[in-house]
């Protein structure tokens, strides 16, 4: 199969891409490629230049932060259709804020973030759809982080103890 056709076919599987018009899908396909990472392989490291947004097509990617002296802390895993590296879609973030490692063999779509921003600037209809999706991702990631921050399973401090 033509690599571009294969790419489009894969992108069409992503639920939220179904909202896109064909011309928009073509535009995104034009700045995207497919990538495979083997289990244990590092997709990017904290501090790397943030050039791509990834969408997991199959497999599982883990996000870790190195916390001295506790070592690597795993705070999120992304399963199919989840987006990672979303912050590179904003004009201000240039560095990866976490490391991404494949937990199992993983198949991904990678989108050039600079070009995606340019596309969104040129076509606000597309830009709106992309940013709306990113807002959803940020909201759910934030909620998740809040719950983790609350450490809901922790034994609470008994400041009102009997």
């Amino acid at each position, binding site marked *: 199969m033509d690599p571009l056709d294969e790419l489009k076919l894969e992108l069409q599987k992503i639920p939220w891409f179904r909202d896109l018009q064909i011309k928009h899908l073509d535009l995104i396909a034009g700045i995207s490629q497919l990538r495979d990472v083997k289990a244990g392989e590092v997709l990017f490291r904290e501090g790397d230049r943030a050039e791509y947004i990834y969408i997991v097509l199959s497999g599982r990617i883990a996000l*870790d932060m190195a916390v001295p002296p506790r*070592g690597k802390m*795993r705070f999120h895993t992304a399963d199919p259709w989840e987006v990672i590296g979303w912050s590179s879609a904003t004009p201000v973030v240039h560095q990866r804020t976490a490391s991404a490692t494949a*937990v199992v063999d993983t198949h991904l779509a990678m989108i050039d973030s600079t070009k995606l921003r340019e596309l969104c600037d040129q076509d606000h209809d597309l830009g709106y759809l992309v940013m709306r999706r990113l807002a959803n991702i940020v909201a759910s990631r934030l909620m998740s982080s809040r719950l983790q921050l609350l450490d809901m*399973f922790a034994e609470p401090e008994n400041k009102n103890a009997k």
Partner: protein
Amino acid sequence: MATHVHTHSPASPSERLLEPVWAQVMDITNEAEGISTYWLKFTDPAVEAAYTFEPGQFNMVYLPGYGEAAISISSNPADPTLVGHTIRFVGNVTRAISRLKVGDVVGIRGPFGSYWPMKEMEGHDVIIACGGIGLPPLRPAIYHIMNNRDKFGKVYLLYGARTPKDLLYPTEFEEWERAGIQVQVTVDRADEDWQGQVGVVPMLFYRFRMDAPNSVVLTCGPEIMIRFVVYEGLARRVPAEQIYVSLERNMKCGQGSCGHCQLGPYFICKDGPVFRFDTLQPYFNVEEF
């Protein structure tokens, strides 16, 4: 109450509900750091023969001199001769329980409270969403589903714990999977050796597609987790009448008499611990209620 009766009738069974019966610890399973399951057998054969419970119910476990704690039953309802209590050692009573050995005796009152709507759930898909020590009160429901697997549609267990070593019953997950229960496990944080999912229980709702109108959600765990599980269920159009939550409060009597566990009009010990969410909704987000 109409006119009082001027006779002194002898104590009836409904009056013995404050007196414990005795059960012996037959076995102790260490489940996780600070959490163990105690397997209890009633010392009186007549009590044992009469004892049954529904998934989601609890017992008041009594250690003479220390007091009582409301503890959900975590064992198979099909075998009430051995009652399992999975206990986290956090309070005065449960810390004392942590020092019990096989052969020791505890007091039991129960079973008390409402239970998961196993009958009404038949024919539906079931989503069991729980976190931490919220899994034990749901394990009897899982056993019940396994015992009657053909009566239920798709069944998902969405389970989260703080870290991988805090997961309860991990050795049983495979058996549950084999029985056609899709087990999704997540932890809040892990080291890089953990191959499973990392994230919070409500996020697991993003991992599968549900037939919302035909689904029943059962949830138990920290109240904050329950809240967000409910929001995820409601966001996916699961009717509020098909979401069931199990709550926890300070309980003393277990039968809606002492007043401690009230939440709005409900005595959680008697009207709960399992509530249909729509009945709870008006009081659910009132702070410090």
